[in-house]
């Protein structure tokens, strides 16, 4: 069964010319972990680990490396991409069941990402704009991207990374010069093991968003250098997060960060160059929207791809339209109440990331390690 599908799948890959370069894989992964984490992660880890949060970001280098090695091992030991590999490792019934759960989770994450962003926009930039217009606009863009195909999406991701990544570092660089105080980092290393572990888990859980790699790796034209690409992603993420957390602590101090909804946004608002260029938050949001659209479209794309497997469909891109309705409705429901969104952000998302994007792959990893057919 699996082999038949494999042949069908690879024929599709060959004839549709779905081949993406390693740099495009890099861009996909950066977009997955970068934009959302850039907004929500600094506040979350600083509230746990206070002035030492940047150390936990650095420490995520090791836990992140383990996650990457785990994903890489699964790719090597699996003949099929996700979600087909679920059937390969767990059998058809559990495979389909898990795929269904993943489908729902992908739709949920897309809706959540959209709701988070829209909520952020309406609270900070465009307070009078109806949420439905913003959601409609962003979903329309995502729909066009999915319909244009994976190759085009990969190229778009390149453009997003060209613009977004340098701009993010520029923001941090400029922000860190706004009334900085190095003393706010002190005392260094004064942290309980529990807080350190919690912050580390939080940082590492974000790397669970690399999970779509299990699908994209099979589209890569050079899988031999995949590990190198993934470590570059990890290094970029760690550098970005550590620099962001450091800049926020140095400028605001850990105690102030606790009362800020989005510390990075507050940092951006502080930027003032020669008393002429200031209040560049809208530029930041404009650039950031590129990343958010990319991130939500990847999960949306995966939802369509997983549906193809579950329902044995020949094509999947036509599902983008019906799924957009589900995503729009769910994100509208989430956006209506900020409390619901906060509960999801603080209590639900991290568990979803850990359970579905780290623990289940870990189980596949163990199974491949000990029960390998090779």
């Amino acid at each position: 069964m699996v082999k038949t599908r494999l042949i069908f799948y690879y024929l599709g890959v060959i004839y549709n010319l779905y081949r993406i370069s390693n740099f495009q894989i890099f861009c996909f992964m950066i977009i997955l972990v970068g934009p959302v984490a850039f907004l929500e992660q600094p506040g979350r880890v600083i509230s746990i680990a206070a002035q030492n949060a940047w150390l936990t970001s650095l420490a995520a280098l090791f836990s992140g490396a383990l996650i990457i090695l785990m994903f890489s091992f699964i790719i090597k030991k699996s003949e099929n991409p996700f979600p087909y590999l679920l059937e390969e490792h767990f059998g058809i019934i559990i495979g389909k069941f898990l795929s269904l759960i993943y489908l729902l989770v992908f739709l949920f994450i897309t809706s959540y990402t959209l709701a988070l962003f829209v909520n952020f926009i309406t609270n900070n930039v465009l307070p009078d704009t109806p949420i439905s217009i913003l959601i409609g606009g962003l979903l329309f863009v995502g729909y066009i991207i999915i319909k244009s195909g994976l190759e085009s999406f990969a190229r778009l991701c390149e453009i997003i990374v060209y613009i977004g990544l340098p701009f993010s570092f520029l923001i941090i660089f400029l922000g860190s010069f706004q009334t900085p105080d190095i003393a706010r980092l002190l005392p260094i290393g004064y942290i309980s093991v529990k807080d350190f572990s919690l912050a580390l888990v939080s940082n590492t859980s974000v790397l669970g968003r690399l999970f779509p790699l299990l699908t994209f790796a099979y589209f890569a034209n050079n899988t031999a250098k995949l590990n190198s690409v993934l470590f570059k992603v990890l290094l970029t993420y760690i550098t970005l997060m550590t620099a962001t957390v450091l800049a926020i602590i140095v400028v605001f101090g850990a105690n102030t960060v606790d009362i800020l909804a989005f510390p990075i946004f507050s940092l951006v608002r502080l930027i003032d160059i020669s008393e002429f260029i200031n209040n560049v938050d809208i530029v930041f949001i404009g650039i950031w929207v590129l990343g958010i659209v990319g991130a939500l479209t990847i999960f949306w794309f995966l939802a369509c791809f997983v549906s193809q497997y579950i329902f044995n469909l020949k094509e999947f891109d036509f599902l983008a339209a019906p799924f957009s309705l589900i995503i729009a409705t769910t994100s509208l429901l989430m956006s209506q109440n900020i409390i619901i969104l906060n509960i999801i952000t603080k209590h639900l998302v991290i568990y979803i990331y850990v359970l579905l994007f780290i623990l289940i792959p870990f189980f596949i990893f163990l199974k491949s390690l000990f029960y390998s057919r090779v």
Partner: protein
Amino acid sequence: MKYLTTRKYAKQSVPPIPDRHLVTQDLTVNLADNLANLNELLESCYDIVIKEFKIATNPSINASILFFDGLVDRVTIEFNVLKPLMFGLEEVSLKDLSSYESKNVFNIIKERILSVSELETVHNLQDVIHHISSGDTIILIDGYATALVAGTRTWQSRNIDTPENEIVIFGPKEGFTETLLFNTAALRRRIKSTSFKMEAFVMGRITKTDVVLCYIENIAPYGLVNEIKSRLDKIDIDGILDTGYLKELITDERKSVFTQIEHTEKPDRVCAHLLEGRICILVDGSPMAMVMPITFPQYLIASEDYYTHYIPASFFRLLRFFALFIALLLPSLYVAVITFHHEMIPTSLYLTIAATRQGVPFPPFIEALLLEVTFEMLREAGLRLPRAVGPAVSIVGALIIGDAAVRAGLVSTPIVVVVAFTGIASFVTPAYNAGIVVRLSRFAFLFSAAILGFLGIMITFIIFITRMVSISSFGQPYLSPIAPLNLAQLSDIIIRRPWFMNVKRPYMDGMENQRRAKMPHENRGDGE
């Protein structure tokens, strides 16, 4: 009423249409039959000249020449065709002629009597018609089912001039003309290689237009050449009057506004493209050459960049990229900032702008839209009006109307500055086609800025980029080498790479011969 009129005309008797199969018939040995058939085919063609005469042999042979007046060199016909046939046979002894079999008289005429450089034979009426339409002269001889074609083409044409749309300071200033042969000669003069191939096609059921496909063998990807040939072969249309006809028929994305084929009037630019493995198509009657495949970043490259030092050339290229963004986004950014995000600009600047906007009855979006539309109208008017009047209208439009609109309080001063600056920036793009895309897209950005401010601009930007990355020009991704990234090529796109580092041609799928030069140290090695 119109319907009735049409009906009235429809009832009129239609003149008999020549048998369509006639044109495909072969020539016969009977001259009278051949002339009758040709007379039928060329009925109502007042410019056809058919002269019947006798070849001075013993006994004499009936013959005819046919040509279209105005397309031929009459001096050549009289001195190199008619005179030798009618009077020049003294050079060949009668004994020789009579000793030959009658079929060899034809060969003697072809090989020893006619003194024209181009001479070939045709066997059917279709070829006869094609050749006389192209300016050749047909010689029909009684007793032979074959006609001689003498190359006598000549016609009045525009002189070779500086291209009006691609002005340069450095480098060749020669441009293409409407005459295909002059254009192919301009290319051949620059590329003196047997690898430089020009394959001819005749296209258009009625117009029978000559189309030439140019490429350099071993550099242009073989698959690409074949693909373009097959696309050309599939075209079935009544007429081709310009390269623009072909462009829409052979591109990958026919519905896209993003032009995937470059048009140029400059032979040196075409040669540069040919040396990079691209393919050029020339159409008789068009002063424009089509070059393919082409990617969007290449529209920002001027041929002049390679004739000047690489440092200023790189600076101007970066300037063009900057100007592209200005031309695309400046009015929409102005509208977004003034309407939604005025906290972004310093208070003093905002107060200045607000002061100038006092009393203006329109919102910034309407102001910008009105001025943009006016600017586009002025630009179009400047192009279409006679040269003597065009610049005057543009100046009147830009200065007087703009100034009057500001004085009347209809628009504010900053928007006039913004639109004028945008207009200047849009002229920086060397390729006119790419400029059109930018001009059209600007309105989309303007609308989105008016609805959602900067967020709207970014949404439109993503759609704009998605569209660009999803199209290809003959298999080449439209945004390459930016997306997909190719660092080696990107260095000759963003800036102008120095010639001593430009050792490789831009990569194309299927290109085998990518190396274009040796590094200086490699040359020294060769010498040693």
